[in-house]
């Protein structure tokens, strides 16, 4: 308990690092996932850019990368992280790899949510002469906005989970804090403190997501 009080500054740093890693990953991965998800949705047979060759390719790529457990992906993609960010370890490398892994997962969530938009609504937009890009930006995304917000909230929680292994490649964050100061030093209080911070973080973000989604859905 005493050592937990001594470690309080480190706990705040770890919390900040988790938010930093997850925030950037959510931004880059979210953007990549949105584009990939829109790509999957629009190239599906019968959709506005229906193209089965492109759809199959995207589909296979997503299916290959999405199921790889993140800790393995982190190790396997290290050369790529080094090539892009200049370093294979630390928070920048983690953000890069996490964004990449998240993009594949997010793409499926985006695709699923876009598929809930009634095809007739898209047809109505086509019938008034709207082009494809305009339909995506002004009809498709606004119509699916409520579920998309909930999907991204879900992804935030998943990213907190995935970011916990950052310590393995020299990154920081609450996962690293719990393992390094709690588990390895036989100090369960420290581990539980990290757990409580994560719970509070997730509750706060889920609440925010719910409020925004309710606003988008007007109910």
């Amino acid at each position, binding site marked *: 308990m005493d050592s937990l009080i001594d470690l309080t500054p480190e706990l705040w740093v770890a919390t900040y690092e988790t938010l930093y890693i997850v925030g950037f990953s959510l931004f880059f991965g979210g953007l990549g996932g949105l584009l990939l998800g829109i790509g999957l949705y629009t190239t599906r047979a019968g959709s506005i850019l229906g193209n089965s060759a492109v759809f199959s390719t995207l589909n296979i790529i997503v299916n290959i990368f999405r199921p790889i457990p993140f800790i393995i992906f982190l190790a396997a993609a290290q050369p790529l992280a080094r090539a892009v960010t200049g370093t294979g370890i630390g928070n920048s490398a983690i953000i890069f790899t996490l964004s990449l892994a998240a993009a594949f997962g997010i793409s499926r969530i985006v695709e699923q949510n876009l598929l809930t938009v*009634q095809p007739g*609504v898209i047809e*109505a937009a086509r*019938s008034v*002469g*709207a*082009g494809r890009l305009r339909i995506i930006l002004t009809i498709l995304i*606004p*119509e699916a906005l409520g579920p998309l917000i909930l999907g991204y909230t879900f992804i935030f929680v998943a990213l907190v989970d995935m970011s916990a292994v950052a310590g393995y490649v020299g990154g920081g964050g609450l996962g690293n804090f719990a393992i390094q100061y709690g588990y390895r030093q036989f100090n369960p209080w420290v581990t539980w403190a990290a757990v409580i911070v994560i719970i509070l973080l997730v509750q706060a973000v889920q609440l925010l997501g719910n409020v925004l989604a309710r606003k*988008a859905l007007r109910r």
Partner: protein
Amino acid sequence: MPLISLQGVTKSFPPGRRGDAPVHAIDNVSLDIEAGEIYGIIGYSGAGKSTLVRLINALEKASSGTIIVDGQQVTNVPDRQLRKLRLDIGMIFQQFNLFNAKTVWNNVAYPLRVAGKSRDEIQARVTELLDFVGLADKASNYPEQLSGGQKQRVGIARALATSPKILLADEATSALDPETTHEVLRLLRRVNEELGITIVVITHEMDVIQTLATKVAVMDSGRIVEQGDVFDVFSNPREASSQRFVSTVVRGIPSPDELAVLQERHTGRIVTFSFRDGDSSQASVFLELAAAGVEFELIYGGINDIRGRAFGHLTLALTGPDGAVDAALTGLSGRITVKELS
């Protein structure tokens, strides 16, 4: 020159399973629609009418044949040109297909934004349209807050936003109750009469054709089996599928089952007189029967009115001396259609 002209149009979809024959949704259809008409296309679900109407604004592309809308070829034109063409063709849908994330106002404004109108033009036009459909007070509501009839009125306002020459109505009243259906049909009539917009109505309800259309085409398995003036098709349907549709709204000649019941209840000879606008009046027919000493009782049928023109089938039980009945029927058969049922 007709406003919409389809010549030998075919639309096939690839088969569901490899190796099967392709599905012909539209099979060699030719159709001319003149400006100012309300053209009804009726058929059961799966007859191909929804596909047919989507060929007109090229939401579906024809496999072969030519489609000319307002002097412009619709088949084999680039997308950019199609989008421009669609500004001239409004469309409303069975499920309304409103943009749920947008207010009523923004739903109606959307086509104008697509057309690149200025803010002032949009303001003026949306106000005018919401007035026209009677929803000025609902401008800031969202579609989910509206009733079915109100949603379709928003759909109509949105379809009319860019002042199109043509309005395509795809089962526009099929999701509505009878009263709301008539309210929407009245509005469509106004669209045609006050704004001079040509309307193509797709429906499986003969009632819609009867109250709204001037011309009708009957579709069955991707083909048009009969087309013409609504009055002609209603008063004298030639094809079996047309007859089935007409019988849903016109109480005509009794079916064999009904005839058996009638024969049990009535003595005498059972005869159906078919009247059409321009034939002898009923009064003169009945006077003649009475003069010939034939007693008659009206046992089945009705008279219908299509835009001021009447037609109908009346089935009578005739009693009297056989010779007198025969003579009377022979005398009448030159002037109206007489059919003895047995």
